[in-house]
């Protein structure tokens, strides 16, 4: 770990060259370890330490970005000069007004010493626990156990100075029987929260329950979506709908619908990077404090997230959702999604279903079919279960869903009060916190043979 003082000094020293009208330096660094297993054996154990510094230089309304993976003084200055040179040859960006100014950030606890010091041997021991737990039910396992420390620093010539160190630990387990599989995962800042035995047991129980899967016809089914399945849907809804670019370009399912009811009245989704229930991160990659943003509230479209550039285009302030400079073309995206829970429990929801399905998770979701209507497609995976007369009666062969999420979430019957922290595409600074969701209808358009 490098630490705030050294990073701030080193980046500040480079910016002191004062190239351009304004300039910014963003550091992303990590020390990470990953133990991967398959066929109930570890087959990959890797560790890496890496760091990258982005310089963004402003000349008038021209913007240049360059990066380096070296923290040596000479390399930093070289990259900074390169960004300044690139800025000179760019077209003016009429929407650019200014880099953000200085801000204060809420104190958020994101570092855990035990996680930071987790060794390969400790990870291997946890994997052994997983393998043994699954073996008790004659299942094999595949999965990964990852841990690490991430550091983010943002400074600019207007006085922004932000630093955060974060730890992350996650375990994913797929348990496999002869003709079935089950999945479970854990994610936290704190290694003590990730219970390898419980995660293995959950995955294994699902695999055992899904043995001898039935072949089901396609069509509409009443479904209960476990949190990982719900998170998969929200991750894609975020990508196609909750970001500034999709909103501005009119492809978002929220575009031209702000203030209108777009889905069921019990559906509320917001983003909050400072909520410690999630994988909190108090500022974005421009150093703007993260704001809590309502996206859908009680079924009504409320808004999207912004960075400073897209905020200017829309005439609103940044909500603190800028991505890294090399991803800036994507616009702002929500990284810390929360879906409001209900008053039910998973067991009560299952009990209420006369005939339906329980989905553990989805695989290979794609949301580029019809973004204004939030149409997604994807396969079920690792635990599609049949529910009959209020009980899980066995597994089913996987099905493909193709449906509008606005329509599907219009049919919400209940949601659990308990919510689960689910992995997202960038665990260190993001996650999805969701309940188990009971839908009256989800349309399944295809099937497969396993």
């Amino acid at each position, binding site marked *: 770990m490098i630490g705030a003082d050294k990073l701030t000094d080193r980046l500040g020293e480079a910016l002191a060259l004062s190239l351009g009208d304004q300039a910014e330096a963003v550091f992303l660094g990590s020390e990470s370890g990953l133990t991967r297993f398959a066929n109930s054996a570890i087959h990959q154990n890797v560790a890496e330490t890496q760091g990258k510094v982005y310089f963004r230089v402003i000349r008038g309304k021209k913007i240049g970005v360059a990066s380096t993976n070296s923290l040596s003084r000479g390399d930093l200055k070289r990259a900074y000069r390169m960004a300044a040179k690139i800025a000179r040859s760019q077209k003016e960006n009429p929407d650019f007004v200014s880099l953000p100014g200085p801000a204060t950030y809420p104190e958020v606890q994101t570092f855990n010493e035990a996680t930071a010091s987790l060794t390969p041997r400790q990870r291997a021991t946890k994997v052994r626990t997983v393998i043994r737990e699954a073996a008790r039910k004659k299942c094999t396992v595949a999965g990964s156990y990852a841990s690490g420390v991430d550091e983010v620093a943002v400074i600019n010539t207007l006085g922004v100075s932000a630093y955060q160190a974060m730890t992350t630990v996650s375990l994913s387990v797929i348990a496999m029987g002869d003709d079935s599989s089950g999945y479970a995962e854990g994610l936290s800042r704190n290694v003590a929260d990730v219970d390898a035995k419980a995660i293995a047991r959950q995955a294994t129980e699902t695999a055992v329950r899904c043995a001898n899967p039935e072949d089901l016809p396609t069509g509409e089914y009443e479904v209960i979506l476990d949190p990982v399945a719900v998170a998969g849907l929200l991750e894609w809804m975020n990508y196609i709908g909750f970001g500034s670019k999709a909103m501005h370009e009119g492809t978002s399912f929220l575009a031209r619908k702000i203030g209108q009811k777009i889905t069921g009245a019990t559906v509320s989704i917001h983003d909050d990077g400072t909520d410690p229930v999630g994988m909190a991160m108090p500022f974005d990659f421009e150093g703007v404090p993260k704001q809590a943003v309502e996206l859908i509230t009680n079924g009504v479209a409320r808004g999207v997230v912004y960075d400073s550039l897209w905020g200017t285009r829309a005439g609103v302030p940044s909500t603190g959702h800028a991505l890294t400079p090399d991803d800036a073309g994507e616009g702002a995206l929500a990284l810390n999604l929360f879906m409001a829970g209900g008053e039910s429990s998973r067991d009560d929801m299952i009990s209420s279903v006369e005939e339906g399905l329980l989905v553990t998770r989805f695989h290979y979701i794609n949301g580029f079919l019809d973004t204004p209507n939030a149409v997604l497609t994807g396969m079920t995976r690792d635990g599609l279960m049949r529910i009959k007369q209020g009980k899980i009666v066995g597994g089913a062969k996987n099905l493909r869903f193709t449906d509008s999420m606005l329509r599907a979430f219009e049919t919400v019957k209940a949601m659990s009060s308990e919510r689960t922290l689910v992995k997202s595409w960038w665990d260190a600074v993001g996650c999805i916190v969701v309940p188990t969701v009971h839908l009256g209808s989800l349309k399944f358009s295809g099937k497969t043979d*396993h």
Partner: protein
Amino acid sequence: MALQVHESCGHPTELDRVLGTEISLAGGSFMTIDKLGKLQYGSKHVTIVADATTPGGLGTFGYDDEGVPAQRTELVRDGLFVGYLTSRETAPVVDQQSNGTMRADRWNRTPLIRMTNINLEPGDVSFDDLMADTEGGLFFDTNTSWSIDDQRLNFQFGCEAAWEIRGGRKGQIYKNPLYTGITPQFWNSCDAVCSRDHWHVWGVANCGKGQPMQVAHVAHGASPTRFRGITVGGSK
């Protein structure tokens, strides 16, 4: 066709994936070892090769990251599943030597079996003749969405546009069409592949695999291809 080859033939013939070491992320493969040399993957018109020597291909190189020379290997010959993408560690499992597909996307990542240029070999019909020979159907162009199950069987791809074909001529255009199928059933319904005059090598610069994720540059040679009895639809 490039994405179709990529998802339904390229990935499922990666032998590390077949042996289970990608299950934790992307899944396994229906093209298991017991099916090698036996599975009628496609019709007689379907020959698919892994060719790391294709001129101009994004998946072209001299040696892989284990030092094995780039080479051309048949994966599907006249519809029969005959080969895998292999490495020095995995090839002995099928009593073979590596065919040179181990690549890492940067200096600090472990090499994985990656696609090279996975090419659907051209047939002998011209595009105009293929269209003229089609009484009724749809011509799909330019993938916009893609999804396939964790064993690479059930797929669904969306496209920018489809044109109705009536009496051998292109007619009405449709927006956001999609088609879906089961991999071996789909490839067995292939009854024509256009000739080399219409064959291009299409680059795919963002093929993701592994943990930590690695992004490979691969490519797919393909020409317009006809399939019979395919399930199609629209996204609305």
